[in-house]
């Protein structure tokens, strides 16, 4: 078994295509970072003054200061207009301050909304009321800090990572069986003692190792590039600081959420890898294998984004590989599915679903190979 696995890994990593593609993808999906500016020391200094738990007193003070600043800036703008001057009406420092005060107000808003929602829930009697209440009760968004790096890292994972991972899996794994068929090596495989069941297992493990390595390298690149630009602060602020998760009922810190996000991304990637391997076991042509996998990955996205449909269908379609690898929709709102009168949160549904598909495809691949014939 070990030497079978060794050969499978050797064949996988001998593909020159994967290196070119990987580097190309990482560069392309990171080119937006060229527009980023590193924060100045002064900017970080300003943030550190406000860092920590936001007390009532702090929030009010920030409101007052924000108003003062705004009045000042408005006045300056008027003066400039009168004189016919053009240019910035405020300094770097003032811009940073306004941004910071607004963020504080923004996160205070999320806190207020939680309180509001909790009181709403007290009057409700639906199946998931208790569940939602218990999640919301834990929430505390009041920690404030400079958190550009974690925000960007989380954003990359739910956007570009899925493109990188998805394409790398398709390109690397689509040929795993198809190439055996098209090269004629299938004849040795299928007539040898370990070329059916054991080889299928070795290929499964090799595909999972490959997937793991791709995700880990992608993650390393994500982390290193963002931390290099923005520093390492802000991991204990909550995800409500990110606009996309502002309405999320889950009060995860950035680090907690990123780990969860990465875990689900990896699980979905594992499952997708097994699907690709399964498809490859059915396709004699590498290109066909690639196209079928690509369609299963991409088509749900285009349907969801472009076609009008009832909400339940849209939600259902989101339980496809691309969206689960994207992870975000599982956490942006409170969503649960009723299973035998028991509300199950979307993230758990997604995890369970991916596990079921993984087992199914792994098992079916082994089955297919046990009875496979040459064409």
């Amino acid at each position, binding site marked *: 078994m070990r030497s079978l696995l060794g050969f499978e890994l050797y064949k996988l990593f001998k593909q020159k295509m994967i290196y070119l593609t990987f580097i190309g993808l990482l560069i392309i999906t990171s080119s937006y970072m060229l527009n980023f500016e590193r924060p100045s020391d002064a900017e970080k200094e300003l943030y550190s003054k406000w860092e920590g738990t936001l007390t009532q007193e702090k929030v009010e003070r920030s409101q007052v200061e924000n108003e003062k600043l705004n009045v000042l800036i408005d006045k300056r703008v008027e003066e400039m207009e009168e004189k016919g001057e053009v240019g910035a009406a405020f300094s770097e420092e003032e811009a940073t301050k306004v941004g910071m005060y607004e963020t504080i107000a923004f996160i205070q808003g999320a806190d207020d909304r939680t309180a509001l929602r909790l009181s709403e829930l007290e009057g409700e009697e639906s199946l998931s009321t208790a569940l939602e209440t218990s999640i919301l009760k834990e929430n505390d968004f009041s920690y404030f800090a400079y958190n550009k790096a974690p925000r960007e890292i989380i954003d990359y994972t739910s956007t570009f990572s899925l493109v990188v991972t998805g394409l790398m899996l398709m390109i690397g794994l689509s040929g795993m069986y198809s190439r055996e068929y098209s*090269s*004629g090596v299938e*004849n*040795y495989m*299928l007539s040898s003692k*370990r070329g059916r069941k054991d080889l299928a297992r070795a290929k499964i493990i090799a595909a999972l190792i490959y997937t793991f390595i791709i995700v880990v390298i992608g993650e390393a690149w994500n982390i290193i590039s963002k931390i290099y630009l923005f520093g390492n602060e802000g991991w204990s602020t909550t995800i409500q600081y990110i606009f996309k998760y502002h309405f999320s009922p889950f009060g995860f810190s950035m680090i907690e959420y990123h780990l969860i996000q990465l875990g689900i991304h990896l699980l979905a990637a594992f499952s997708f890898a097994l699907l690709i391997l399964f498809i490859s076991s059915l396709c004699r042509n590498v290109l066909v294998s690639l196209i079928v996998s690509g369609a299963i990955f991409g088509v749900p996205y285009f349907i969801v984004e472009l076609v009008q449909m009832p909400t339940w269908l849209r939600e259902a379609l989101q339980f496809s590989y691309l969206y689960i690898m994207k992870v975000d929709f599982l956490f942006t709102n409170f969503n649960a599915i009723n299973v035998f009168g028991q509300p199950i949160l979307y993230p758990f549904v997604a995890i369970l679903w991916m596990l079921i598909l993984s087992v199914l495809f792994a098992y079916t691949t082994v089955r297919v190979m046990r009875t496979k014939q040459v064409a």
Partner: protein
Amino acid sequence: MKLTIEKVTKSYGEKVAVNDLSFELTEGVYGFLGSNGSGKTTLMRILASVSKPTSGRVLFDGEDIRTLDEKYRDMLGYSPQHIGYYKNFTVQKFMLYIASLKGIERQQAKQKVDELLELVNLTENNKVKMSKLSGGMKQRVGIAQALLNDPQILIVDEPTAGLDPKERVRFRNLLSKISANRIVLLSTHIVSDIEFIAKEVMILKEGVLIQKESPKKLLEGIRNKVWTATVNEEEVADLQAHFRCGNIAHNDERFDIRLLSETKPHSNAVQTKPNLEDLYLYYFEEDGVA
């Protein structure tokens, strides 16, 4: 050791490639003879368990090979008609890969690979990429990989296709060296490949087994039917129109022609000793008869 083929049929849609075959094989070399498309490869694939019969079954010592599964494949060496390989693998790496497919321990595999490459005269080429080998060398790798697990059943599909005559002789020597104590099946459409080494020749035609005999017996069957005659050009055309003709040799103004006939075909025809080429002619060239 006995391989039993029991009412085996294989169809591809309408096309029946192998039609209701039943026979038995024991230790020794069997030569499958048949023109292109007669079903040799199809039958060998079934015996090599890479293809399933549409109906019928194959038994090894009385047990269905599908039940034996891994145990059967463990006894099997198969060299397919077209030697598949990975382009960037060296000969040695390729052999080690097949060894791992066969479940041979790494250390033992190394030794076995060296041994077999020596046997097929490829020791010098063990670091050469598979894609750089000549047709004959690839065939020899095909044989070598089939022998890695010291198989009791060795199936070699058209091993001499694309070999030059010298390589063919070398291959026959190799085969006679390795054929002891195994069931060896060899398909070819070149008669001389099996004339001297086959215990039995099996003649397939359109998926049907029409003969299964020792070469000697088969030749006896056409003993009084092979003739040679020396004739002129017009007579050649005339004979070709009415009889199955083999070799024609130019001899000054006249021609020496070899042909098959139940009765004396020409006034100066003389009977001659049949060989397997005649046998092939006898079974496969009847379409040529007007």
